[in-house]
């Protein structure tokens, strides 16, 4: 993994904030603590005086990761073959301006003399699967490439060095074949269980809440982080999934308990929040019984976190892999992604398939 950015601890207040205990009966102490606490949560004034960015800290002295963040980016997870990790200025311009021109073109006025589109439409992103016929009103994959340590990146994966997810092990390939064989008994639209988890509104397509928490390339790559002494809560807008990360140590879940977002425990290594997750749900994007995800959160700027992840699963991948994803400050609030409550699609998809079967049966008769 890349270098970890560290910042010196703020010398004033953080130690006191950690040790003192509030007693409401002592007005003087409460008053002092009130001032100290407000000073801790308000480094903006210190910043104004020195002109240099100082990391905001919580009352217990750790960097404050709280706020709304987005990991939307035009940088893909895996590096196109033959490309270097760091993009040239020309490559950045090509990618970012390319996306911009697509948006402008698609937002242009329609030709009033155009022919009716063929049945099924002409949109090239209409594919026969989970993602069908979204236009640019829906799609918001980001407008910039990922910038990490000042470098524009060609891939989010940085380990192994070629920026590619390593090959599956023989065991994992066999698991995949068995799973494909099992699912192959059924038609694509026979049952709800054979549809993708995002279509069933369990979790995001992609791996938004993860872990690892990755941009999905489509929309709503937004997060809210709330940080207390004992927990860090990360809510992914997709699909209103709140990860509860316990800080410290305690009994892990037994191996047969595998909640959607796994069992996450965090600790601070200097100014970096390190989170270890096991017990991921078998239907999650990246998962196996033995998979462990290590995540590292660093506040690198007033408007950015650096998110780093490593996936360690010798039963699935021939080597560990991981990457770096910038999370940029989001100047907006998150919305309630009430997916299930409005999921007419799944019943319509299944009903449509049953209708086609009836029509086919009538044709035969």
């Amino acid at each position, binding site marked *: 993994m890349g270098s970890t950015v560290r910042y010196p601890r703020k010398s004033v207040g953080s130690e006191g904030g950690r040790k003192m205990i509030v007693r*409401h009966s002592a007005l003087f102490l409460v008053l002092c603590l*009130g001032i100290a606490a*407000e000073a801790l949560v308000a480094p903006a004034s210190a910043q104004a005086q020195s002109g240099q960015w100082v990391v905001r800290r919580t009352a217990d002295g750790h960097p404050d990761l709280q706020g*709304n963040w987005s990991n939307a980016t035009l940088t893909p997870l895996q590096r196109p073959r033959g490309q270097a990790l760091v993009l040239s200025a020309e490559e950045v311009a090509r990618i970012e301006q390319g996306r911009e021109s697509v948006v402008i073109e698609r937002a242009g006025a329609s030709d009033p003399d155009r022919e009716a589109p063929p049945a099924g439409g002409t949109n090239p992103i209409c594919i026969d699967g989970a993602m069908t016929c979204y236009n640019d009103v829906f799609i918001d994959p980001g407008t910039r490439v990922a910038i990490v340590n000042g470098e524009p990146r060609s891939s989010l994966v940085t380990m192994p060095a070629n920026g590619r997810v390593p090959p599956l092990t023989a065991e994992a390939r066999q698991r995949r074949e068995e799973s494909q064989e099992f699912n192959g008994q*059924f038609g694509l639209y026979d049952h709800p269980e054979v549809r993708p988890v995002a279509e069933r509104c369990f979790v995001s397509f992609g791996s938004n809440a993860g872990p690892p928490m990755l941009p999905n390339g489509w929309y709503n790559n937004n997060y809210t982080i709330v940080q207390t002494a004992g927990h860090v809560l990360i809510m992914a807008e997709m699909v*209103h999934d709140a990860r509860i990360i316990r800080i410290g140590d305690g009994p892990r879940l037994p191996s047969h308990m595998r909640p959607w977002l796994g069992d996450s425990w965090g600790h601070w290594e200097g100014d970096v929040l390190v989170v270890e997750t096991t017990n991921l749900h078998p239907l999650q994007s990246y998962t196996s019984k033995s998979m462990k995800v290590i995540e590292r959160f660093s506040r690198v700027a007033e408007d950015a976190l650096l998110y780093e992840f490593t996936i360690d699963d010798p039963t699935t991948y021939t080597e560990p892999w991981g990457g770096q994803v910038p999370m940029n400050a989001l100047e907006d609030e998150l919305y309630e992604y009430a997916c299930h*409550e409005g999921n007419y699609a799944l019943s319509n998809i299944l009903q449509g398939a049953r209708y086609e079967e009836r029509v086919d049966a009538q044709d035969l008769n």
Partner: protein
Amino acid sequence: MSSAVRSPKYAVGRVVLGLLAVALVPAYAQAQSMDIPRTVSGRPDLNGIWQALGNAHWDIEPHQARAALQMVPGPVVPVPSQEVVAFGALGAVPPGMGIVEGGEIPYLPAARAIREANRENWVTLDPAIKCYLPGVPRATYMPFPFQIFQSERAFFITYEFAGADRNIYLEDPGPPQVDSWMGQSVGHWEGDTFVVEARGFTGQAWIDRSGNHASYQLRVTERYTMTSPYHIAYEATMEDPGTFSRPWTISLTLYKNVEDNARIGVFKCVEFVEELLYGQYRKIP
């Protein structure tokens, strides 16, 4: 909203507000019979896992035990509807003293008729049966725990049932831009009480299993007051002039889970209702 958090002007405002607030804290605190945990800035510390006891989730009005939520006419007396017969005693409604101040919800006549229709069709109409988000205030007293995450800069509640979430804004972002099941919530402190104004609801969530309901115009004012390290006195006042003849209030106690290593579980529940919602559309071999 995000940009305001970062401005030096706002930081100065926080210091002034903080000083005012901490000056007020002791007066309220002395009225407490028991020490409650407090944050570094002197606010009551509501962090933890909380849950209501009792049977309000069945019916928030005072009610006698009854055989089932959904009853149909029988040859002699009404009997449980066919869908709930198999549940036997576990489908019966336990009695409850109710949590509505004054005992009865002040429905307008048309809204009362909707409640009765809801009650007669509980199995098909209760959104919680379909694992839809429970709404406010129902999320609070569902028979599931919830966890409060309170920092100096944020207040967030996540509920075990359906994985419902509420980010309680500490600065008002203005009118809700869209309606939502859990609404838009803005919180502020009145002394030691955390007051939350919630609005912007879809009007589709119910208030309990007995068909009690409100419209999209509902505004809920919640008050969270710690009365001990382990108890929160919870009040919620409902205003919805199209549904109720006057504002009305519920009050109940929330209990803290004090078990070692307590955690709320993951009960997304969407995956558990697929047979209910989509089973009828399966391919028949």
